[in-house]
């Protein structure tokens, strides 16, 4: 039963991540795009998929990756997410510098750019904070609050950014991935009662402690 449940959870997760990537790969738009632009686009989709994984890992919801292992994976995937976003933005910059500069300066005509750029800065900020928090002596509660706020910005910004784009992603699989990402983030925040001031730095279950 436990094996069946684990298999089901992993299968659902793989489907939720692979379906939008597969549909995007089949998009006719690729025929008219350069390779750098295509890579940049996929880096963005990949980044969105990682934003779904992050709350699942830290919440310990994924069979085989509870507790410490889930947190370790969360840390490393955070780094991969920052790299994916850098590739996304860098590739788009190479493809069309004026459009990317407009986006970064918040003067783009496309509303989704603003959401994406804000989410990008939040991703970079949380990555830098995570790397330096011990060095600069950030208290666990301050770190937790900062990470929480940035996580909300990343999830909401990333999801709205993706939904507003008319690009290679197929509508239904994109909407499903976005809905799951939002749901996973909301669930982990409710389960860990992130609005509480007192919190365990190791992420223990407060309802039991």
């Amino acid at each position, binding site marked *: 039963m436990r094996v069946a449940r684990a298999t089901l959870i992993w299968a659902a997760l793989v489907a939720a991540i692979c379906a939008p990537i597969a549909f995007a790969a089949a998009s006719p*738009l690729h*025929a*008219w*795009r*350069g390779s750098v632009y295509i890579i940049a686009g996929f880096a963005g989709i990949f980044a969105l998929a990682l934003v779904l994984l992050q709350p699942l890992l830290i919440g310990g919801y994924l069979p085989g990756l509870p507790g410490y292992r889930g947190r370790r994976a969360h840390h490393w995937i955070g780094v991969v997410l920052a790299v994916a976003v850098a590739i996304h933005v860098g590739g*788009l910059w190479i*493809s*069309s510098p*004026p*459009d990317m500069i*407009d986006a970064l300066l918040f*003067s*783009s*005509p*496309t509303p*989704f*750019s603003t959401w994406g750029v804000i989410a990008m800065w939040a991703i970079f900020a949380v990555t830098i904070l995570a790397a330096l928090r011990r060095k600069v002596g950030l208290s666990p509660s301050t770190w937790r609050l900062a990470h929480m706020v940035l996580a909300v910005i990343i999830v909401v910004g990333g999801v709205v950014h993706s939904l*507003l*784009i*008319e*690009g290679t992603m197929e509508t239904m699989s994109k909407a499903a991935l976005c809905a799951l990402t939002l749901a996973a983030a909301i669930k982990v925040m409710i389960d860990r009662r992130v609005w509480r001031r007192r919190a365990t730095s190791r992420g223990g279950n407060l309802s039991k402690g």
Partner: protein
Amino acid sequence: MTTVLMCRRSLIAAGGSFLATGLPGLLSLARAEGLAPTPSMSGGANNYRKGAPIVDRIGKGGFWMSGTVRRSGDGAPLAGQRIQIWAHTTEGQEHELQSHGATLTDKNGGFRLEMPQIVPVFGQPHGHLAYDSGEFHTVFLRPVMRSAKDKSLEAHFILQPV
């Protein structure tokens, strides 16, 4: 206002805009009398290339970009104005030379240029147009298609004399 050559229409327009300046309450009247110039759209000038040649058609065609060019104030149609058009299409990216072309307005101030199908790029299916000949203030437009499947797109210029 010092111009001696002034037709009745522009006199009415000038009067209208004077009233608007003097009496903000009559702004709606002024709008009816004097057409405001079209401002450039943000991102409109992206991947612009100066001096694209006047062509009968950009690439193999199949998509129509059309619009009108009028003078601010009196709204008079402007004939013989050069409008430059470019977009990311099935035949090339925005910055590429073959994606750019220009056309001239007819006696009614209308223009129409056939070009390859525009495809979504940077998240929106859109085209770029420019008036940049110097007689009027330069304007860059960036109209967005309602659907990526559309076979045509319109953009309208109201130009302000320099």
